C-alpha cells in the first residue's frame, strides 16, 4: 500500500457521505427537537425524496413579524396578510439555479395565487422544519415538489373553507384563482379571508387535493428571477456582501500542497503591520472539507488583510502533504492503458474479448481529460460571529442544512450553538457543497472577539478546490457485419485517496450507458493514488465520462459507415426503463427531436460539421447537436448548439432555458481550454489568465427545446452539460475527420 494512503487526508470519506446524502435526497442532520411557538401546525408526512418518511412539523417560526395576529400562516412556507400580500419563504439555497423563483412558483400554483401578489424571502436554516435545504445533484425540484405543492394546497383548502363558511355554501361550490376564492361571480380575496382562515384547523396534507397538470396557471411559463431587481441595482445579497457593526476582515493561508502543516510563521511581524488586529496559527483537523492547518490574519479591511498576507512567511511541514504530479500521472496512465483490463472489474456482461475478436470492425481509443476547478465567480468567503453563546454564520453555501453538522463536527460545538443564515451564492457548480470556508471562518471567530468576514483570494480559490478529477479511458469496441454495436470494453484509470474507493467523480457505476445496451460489455478500473481533493463538479462523473462514451460511440458508427443518429437510436433499442433510470424511449424522443430541429443530414459548407450526442444524468434525458467549423489552422467556431431535454413538466421556462444555455457555455468553456495541473502537490494555475473561462465573443447561438412529458418534474441545473463536449467533438470529426481524444481542445492544437 502506498504510503500516501495513510496520510491524514480524508476528503473523500466525508465527501462520499455527503454525496450519498445528496443523491438520496436525505437530510444529514438528526431531527432534533425544535420548539415551535406557533399554534397552527401542519403535519406533513411521506415527503418525497428517497422514500424517506419524516414527521415534519411545519411551524410558522419564520420571523418576528410572523406573529402578527391578522396574518394567515398555516405553515412555515407562507404567510398571507390581511392586506393581501402573500409572503412565500424559499427554503433552498439560491446558487444561480433559480430555485428562489421556482420553489415559490410551485407553492403559488397550488395556492392559486396571483404571482404579482407574491413576495419571496429566504427561509431560516432549519432542516427540522423545512426538510432538505441543500442544492445538489439537480435534486431540488424532485425532492421538494410534493412538499411544496402540499404547503400551497393546504393553505388553499383552508381559505376555501373560510370563504364557504362566510357565504354559507358548500366548499364544492367554491373555486380559486388570482389570490381569491370565488362563488359564481362573487369573490373573497385571500387577504380578506386571512383572519378567518387562521382560526380553522389545519387539514391533513395527505387529504388535500393537488392540481392536475392541465389546471396549472403559473407553472410552465417564463418568469424573471424574483431577486433580479436587487441583482441589477447592486443590493447586498451575496455572502461577500454581508456587513455587521464592527466587522473585521480575515484571510487564511494554507499550505499550497494539500496536507501541509505549519512549522513556523512570522506572526509577530505580521501583527505589527498597519491595520492588522491579530494573526494566529490554526492547527485544524486535517480534513480538507473542514479545517486544514493554516495561519489566520484579521485586519481592519480586506485590503489590509490581503497586504499582510503578502508579507506572511510560513514554513510548512510537508512530510504528509500531497506530492501529486499531473506529468507523472499521465505517464503512468499511458503505460496502464496498454493493459486491456484494470485491477478491478466493475461489470462484465457476455464475452467481450471473444466478441471483439469476432467483430467485423473494431476500434481502439485512449481518452484523456484533465482536472478542472469550479471557480465560481464569488470567491469562497463566510462571515462568522461568536456572540451571546451562539456561533452565527452568514454563509454562501449549497448545503445550508448539512453545514450545521459539518460546523458542529469541525468546531466542537453542539448544533444548538450554531446558527447559519443563508445568503445568495455567487455560483455553486458543486464547489459549495463543501463548507470548508465556513469552518475556517468559524475557527477564526472562535479566536477573535467580534464579527469576522473571511475572504479568499482568487488564487486561493483555484489552489484549494475540490477538483473534478481528470481521468483516462482505454477503450475497444466492435461492430458486426451489419454495423451493429456488439462489444464495448473500457479500462478506466482514475484515482483513490484512501486506497480503496475511487475519488468523488472518479467512479463509473455498472449501470452507466451503454452497459445495458450492448450484448458484450466489460468495465474495469485501475486507481492511482492521489491526495489532491476531488469533489462533485456540475453533473459529477457525467461531465467527463459522457464525452468519452459518446465520442467513442461515434468512432464506432463512423467505422461502420453508419449515420450516427440511426446508430444511436439502434443502440437505445426498444422503449423501456432500464435499471438506473435511463428510459430508452425518452432518449429516442429527444434524439429524434434534436436532429429534426438541427437539420440533421443537411449539406454544410466545407469545414463545417454537425455532431450529435446524448446523455442521461440527474434524471434528465438530453440530446444535443453542435454545428462547428474548423479552419486550416485548427481554429474552431461553435456556431450553434441545439439542446433538447426531457425533464418532465417545466416549472419556470425562463429559468430552465437559462440553465441549459449556461450548461452549454460551461461545457464548451471547460472542454475548450480549461485544465488544472499540479506538480509537487501544487496547483499550477493561479488566476483567470491561466484558467481562461469563455468570454462573450465565443458565445454560440444556443437553442433549447423541451419535451414536457408527463413524467415527474426533475432538475435542470446539470443534465444539459454532459452532451456538450461529445457533440462538439463529433462535429469536429464531421468537419475535418480529426478525432479528439484529449481535452481540453487546446491540447490537440485547437483554438478559437
Amino acid at each position: 500500500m502506498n504510503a500516501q494512503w495513510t496520510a491524514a487526508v480524508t476528503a473523500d470519506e466525508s465527501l462520499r457521505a455527503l454525496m450519498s446524502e445528496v443523491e438520496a435526497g436525505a437530510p444529514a442532520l438528526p431531527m432534533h427537537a425544535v420548539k415551535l411557538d406557533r399554534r397552527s401546525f401542519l403535519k406533513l408526512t411521506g415527503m418525497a425524496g428517497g422514500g424517506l418518511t419524516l414527521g415534519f412539523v411545519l411551524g410558522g417560526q419564520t420571523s418576528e413579524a410572523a406573529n402578527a395576529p391578522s396574518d394567515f400562516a398555516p405553515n412555515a412556507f407562507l404567510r398571507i396578510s390581511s392586506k393581501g400580500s402573500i409572503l412565500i419563504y424559499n427554503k433552498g439555497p439560491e446558487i444561480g439555479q433559480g430555485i428562489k423563483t421556482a420553489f415559490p412558483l410551485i407553492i403559488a400554483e397550488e395556492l392559486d395565487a396571483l404571482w404579482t401578489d407574491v413576495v419571496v424571502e429566504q427561509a431560516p436554516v432549519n432542516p427540522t422544519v423545512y426538510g432538505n435545504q441543500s442544492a445538489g445533484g439537480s435534486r431540488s425540484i424532485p425532492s421538494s415538489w410534493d412538499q411544496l405543492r402540499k404547503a400551497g394546497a393546504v393553505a388553499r383548502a383552508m381559505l376555501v373553507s373560510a370563504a364557504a363558511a362566510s357565504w354559507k355554501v358548500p366548499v364544492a361550490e367554491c373555486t380559486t384563482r388570482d389570490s381569491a376564492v370565488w362563488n359564481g361571480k362573487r369573490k373573497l380575496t385571500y387577504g380578506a379571508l386571512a383572519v378567518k382562515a387562521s382560526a380553522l384547523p389545519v387539514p391533513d396534507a395527505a387529504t388535500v387535493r393537488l392540481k392536475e397538470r392541465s389546471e396549472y396557471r403559473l407553472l410552465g411559463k417564463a418568469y424573471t428571477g424574483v431577486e433580479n431587481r436587487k441583482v441589477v441595482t447592486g443590493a447586498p445579497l451575496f455572502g461577500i456582501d454581508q456587513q455587521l457593526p464592527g466587522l473585521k476582515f480575515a484571510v487564511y493561508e494554507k499550505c499550497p500542497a494539500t496536507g501541509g502543516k505549519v512549522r513556523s510563521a512570522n506572526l509577530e511581524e505580521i501583527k505589527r503591520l498597519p491595520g492588522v488586529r491579530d494573526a494566529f496559527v490554526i492547527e485544524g483537523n486535517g480534513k480538507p472539507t473542514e479545517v486544514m492547518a493554516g495561519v489566520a490574519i484579521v485586519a481592519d479591511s480586506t485590503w489590509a488583510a490581503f497586504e499582510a498576507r503578502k508579507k506572511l512567511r510560513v514554513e510548512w511541514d510537508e512530510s504528509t502533504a500531497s506530492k501529486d504530479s499531473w506529468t507523472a500521472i499521465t505517464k503512468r496512465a499511458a503505460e496502464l492503458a496498454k493493459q486491456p483490463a484494470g485491477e478491478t472489474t466493475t461489470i462484465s456482461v457476455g464475452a467481450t474479448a471473444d466478441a471483439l475478436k469476432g467483430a467485423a470492425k473494431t476500434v481502439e481509443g485512449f481518452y484523456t481529460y484533465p482536472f478542472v476547478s469550479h471557480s465560481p465567480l464569488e470567491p469562497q468567503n463566510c462571515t462568522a460571529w461568536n456572540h451571546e453563546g451562539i456561533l452565527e454564520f452568514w454563509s454562501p453555501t449549497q448545503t445550508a442544512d448539512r453545514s450545521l453538522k459539518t460546523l458542529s463536527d469541525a468546531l466542537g460545538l453542539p448544533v444548538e450553538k450554531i446558527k447559519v443564515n443563508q445568503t445568495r451564492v455567487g455560483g455553486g457548480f458543486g464547489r459549495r457543497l463543501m463548507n470548508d470556508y465556513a469552518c475556517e471562518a468559524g475557527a477564526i471567530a472562535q479566536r477573535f472577539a467580534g464579527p469576522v468576514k473571511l475572504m479568499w483570494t482568487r488564487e486561493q480559490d483555484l489552489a484549494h478546490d475540490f477538483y473534478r478529477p481528470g481521468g483516462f479511458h482505454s477503450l475497444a469496441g466492435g461492430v458486426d457485419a451489419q454495423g451493429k454495436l456488439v462489444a464495448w470494453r473500457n479500462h478506466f484509470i482514475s484515482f483513490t485517496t484512501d486506497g480503496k474507493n475511487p475519488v468523488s467523480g472518479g467512479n463509473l457505476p455498472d449501470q452507466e450507458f451503454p452497459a445495458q445496451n450492448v450484448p458484450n460489455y466489460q468495465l474495469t478500473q485501475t486507481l492511482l493514488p492521489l491526495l489532491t481533493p476531488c469533489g462533485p463538479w456540475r453533473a459529477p462523473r457525467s461531465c467527463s465520462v459522457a464525452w468519452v462514451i459518446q465520442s467513442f460511440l461515434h468512432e464506432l458508427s463512423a467505422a461502420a459507415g453508419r449515420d450516427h443518429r440511426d446508430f444511436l437510436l439502434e443502440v437505445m433499442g426498444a422503449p423501456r426503463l432500464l435499471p438506473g433510470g435511463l428510459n430508452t424511449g425518452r432518449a429516442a424522443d429527444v434524439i429524434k427531436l434534436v436532429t429534426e430541429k438541427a437539420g440533421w443530414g443537411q449539406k454544410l459548407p466545407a469545414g463545417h460539421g454537425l455532431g450529435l450526442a446524448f446523455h442521461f444524468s440527474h434524471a434528465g434525458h438530453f440530446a444535443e447537436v453542435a454545428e462547428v467549423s474548423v479552419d486550416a489552422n485548427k481554429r474552431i467556431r461553435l456556431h450553434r448548439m441545439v439542446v433538447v431535454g426531457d425533464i418532465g413538466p417545466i416549472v419556470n421556462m425562463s429559468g430552465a432555458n437559462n440553465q441549459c444555455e449556461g450548461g452549454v457555455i460551461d461545457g464548451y468553456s471547460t472542454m475548450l481550454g480549461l485544465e488544472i495541473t499540479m506538480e509537487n502537490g501544487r496547483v499550477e494555475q493561479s488566476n483567470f489568465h491561466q484558467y481562461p473561462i469563455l468570454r462573450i465573443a465565443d458565445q454560440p447561438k444556443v437553442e433549447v427545446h423541451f419535451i414536457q412529458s408527463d413524467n415527474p418534474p426533475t432538475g435542470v441545473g446539470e443534465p444539459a452539460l454532459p452532451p456538450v463536449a461529445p457533440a462538439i467533438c463529433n462535429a469536429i470529426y464531421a468537419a475535418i475527420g480529426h478525432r479528439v481524444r484529449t481535452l481540453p481542445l487546446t491540447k490537440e492544437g485547437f483554438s478559437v
Partner: protein
Amino acid sequence: MAILNLRVNGKERTVEDVDPATPLLWVLRDSLNLVGTKFGCGMAVCGACTVLVDGEPIRACSTPVAGLAGKNITTIEGLARSEKELHPLQQAWIDHDVPQCGYCQAGQLMSATALLARTPKPTDEDIDAAMAGNLCRCGTYQRIRAAIHTAAGRLAKGKA
C-alpha cells in the same frame, strides 16, 4: 494613511484613515458600504469590479484610490435614474431574465453602460468588443447581448 475625498454616485464622500494604495474596490466595499461592486480576481481580468470613472469603465480591483480624487465615480448603486426608474439596461436585464447567480452582472451592466454612451446602436461585434473584459461563469452571454440590444432600442425610441 490619509483622508480622501471622493465623488461617488454624485455624492461627496470622505474616507478617513485609508492607505492611498488601496484599490477603489475595497474602499467602496469596506469603507463606503457600497457592496454592489464585486471582487472576482484582483488582477483586472474578470470585470466583476467594473465601475465608471468619468464615464469610462475601469477595474476597481486594480485602481488605487489615490488617483481618483475629483473624478466622478459611478457604481451599480448609482446607475438607476431614480429610486423608481431603473436605467434601461437594468430594466432590460430584468426583462430578459439575464442573471443566473448574478455575481458578475453589476460589472456587466457598468461595461454595457459605457458601451451605449459611446455607441448607442451597437452591433454584436461592438458588444463583443466592449464586453470582452467581463466574465460570466454561469454563461449568460446570449441574454446579455439580447438585453443590450433591447436597451439600445428603448433608448433610441425615448430620444426619437
